């Protein structure tokens, strides 16, 4: 059933959903896009952060604040994860990528089973003043939780873009992504920089996990639903591009929502991979890759 009103609604909602996809993918854009670490545990870390926000909710802490509070411990977790990955896989040779994949799959399973053992299989939700309410803009009722996700995605993208382009460490992270050997020749320690960057990527996941539980209920195996979407957004954007991640997320969100509204929900999951195939076919370096 087609109507211009439904199409307009779908585009507006798609932008909001797309920004949410960008927010949950942007950490991966650093770890996989810039550092070339096959971090398939990214969605599991996302769900772990959601459970953290849920736990802090018992103390009447707002989910966004909870996400911010979780950032330092997640930073440390990221540093430990990268150091373990580096010592056991990365520095041992050329097949690090494949073996690293197994390592991060293992981490994802441990997180998933750990959550089940600690909190059971029930789905969890949080309460906040912006959950369950909506705002009306141009005759379109928009869920407040999606507006929050939209705003946080913009802020995260802006903050990370500024950090990576204006700070010394940020530029060092970009340098290690471009030419690790050249950086080493200049006397810098690329491993320490990658470790720092992976810590930042994981800290960002903490905030994104809080957004996830704001947008939808979470349960231990939810990570499986996000593995395809997050990797699709990052690869489609062009590895390592922060603004590209935001735009790729929006493209995916709008395409999915239009298909879901006007053509049938069953086709929606195919959209991400169809877009990915088209982009890789036409522009292999991604939409915003160099």
């Amino acid at each position, binding site marked *: 059933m087609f109507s211009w009103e439904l199409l307009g609604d779908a585009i507006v909602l798609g932008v909001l959903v797309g920004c949410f996809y960008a927010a949950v993918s942007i950490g991966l854009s650093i770890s996989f896009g810039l550092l070339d670490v096959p971090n398939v545990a990214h969605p599991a870390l996302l769900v772990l952060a959601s459970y953290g926000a849920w736990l802090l909710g018992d103390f009447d802490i707002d989910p966004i604040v909870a996400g911010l509070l979780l950032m330092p411990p997640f930073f440390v977790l990221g540093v430990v994860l990268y150091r373990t990955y580096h010592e056991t896989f990365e520095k041992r040779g050329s097949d690090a990528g494949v073996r690293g994949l197994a390592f991060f799959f293992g981490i994802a399973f441990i997180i998933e089973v750990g959550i089940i053992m600690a909190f059971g299989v029930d789905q969890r939700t949080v309460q906040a003043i912006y959950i*369950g309410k909506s705002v009306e803009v141009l005759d379109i009722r928009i869920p407040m939780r999606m507006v929050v996700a939209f705003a946080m995605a913009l802020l995260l993208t802006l903050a990370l873009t500024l950090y990576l382009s204006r700070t010394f460490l940020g530029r060092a992270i970009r340098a290690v992504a471009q030419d690790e050997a050249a950086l080493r020749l200049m006397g810098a320690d690329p491993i320490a920089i990658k470790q720092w960057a992976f810590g930042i990527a994981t800290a960002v996941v903490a905030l994104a996990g809080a957004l996830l539980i704001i947008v939808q209920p979470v349960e231990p195996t939810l990570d499986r639903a996000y593995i395809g979407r997050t990797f699709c957004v990052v690869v489609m954007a062009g590895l390592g591009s922060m603004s590209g991640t935001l735009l790729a997320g929006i493209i995916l969100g709008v395409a999915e929502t239009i298909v879901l509204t006007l053509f049938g929900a069953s086709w929606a999951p195919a959209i991400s991979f169809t877009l990915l195939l088209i982009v890789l076919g036409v522009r292999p370096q991604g939409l915003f890759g160099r």
Partner: protein
Amino acid sequence: MGSGRIHRRTAVAGALAAGLALPVRAQQGPVKIGMSMPLTGGLAAGGKSALVGIEVWRDDVNEKGGLLGRKVELIVYDDKSSAAETPAIYSKLLDVDKVDLLFAPYATVPTAPIMPMVKQRDLLLMGNFSFQVNRTVKHDKWFNNAPWGPADSWARGFIDLGMKAGAKTIALIGADQEFAQNLMKIAKDVATEKGVKVVYEQSYPPATAEFSAMVRAIRAARADMVFVCSYPPDSVGLLRAINEIGIGDSVRLFGGGMVGLQFSSVMESMGSLLNGVVNYNSWLPEKSMEFAGTKDFFVKYQKRAGEAKVDPLGYYLAPFGYAMGQMVEQAANATKSLDHKKLADFLRSNEMMTIVGPIVFGPDGERKESATLMAQFRGVVDKNIEQFRNPGKQIILFPEKWKTGELVQPFEKARK
């Protein structure tokens, strides 16, 4: 002594040869009841709760002196909510543990693969809340404890309620999974049969994260009733989106087959968002649903549920686990036997009195008459699990014999 042993061995060998192994084992030791149960994985929340219900029955029957004078022992293995696990588990229960009776695991998916085996070995299997697993197998010793009855009972109850409220059109939405799709197809058939026009039909993939777009499309279709076949995460997502976007004034009835709204954790987290939804259920704490032993059971269950960290209310599954034991107990006491054929004959031809009401089976081993409830959430407040312990929060609208109130409509009014 020696000759006695030889005599017994000969008897056992003879009985085995005659295919009567189970009644002979029944002469010794405790009565072993074997089952797998989803204690981990996606079905674990329900499986654990159902098992506590069965354990309460075991302790009650043992307190009364056991089954035919023998203690009841449960042998339970975790099937991890997986259909791949159950055939091997039930083979082990029969061939290694040598159990006397079998209970099925909770839910359709783990039960379906063991149906051919129990039919082949001609064994009694007490079903545990599965849906239509015997439809093609046609085993004559299958008896399901679930209240479903005929396959179309959920949809028929809902659509009848809607038609009484003046609904002439229906929207159908459901998850893209077998159970939900079957239910949706049945609802479409019932709607067509009754002359209700289907104005919107949509399946969505299980990983759908955001339902706002779908809710907008349903609203645009201006259906009089919306039949939803959803799983727990989708049920929550849909209700949230409806609260935010609104479903429109045309909708008189919303709900039907939403899985998850029966579980305490979901009910507590959804709170007031549940108001107005008319959904299926199995047992509710309404006056019309109190039978002999019901209150005592819930006192015992809820005490254990806290210790076992399972559903603290346990209305949906646990009393039916207990009822499963009660039915076997009544059949064994009446026939003075654990012979599967005798037990099955009794179960097939008698009315069993249980804590969830009287149960009569049809020829397919499902309830002869549906006891599936359609109830409307009313006056639910946020963050309060205790409210659900009292009558009045889920008004039973169907079936007529257990009705405790009238439908409040339209849906948007009932939500307030």
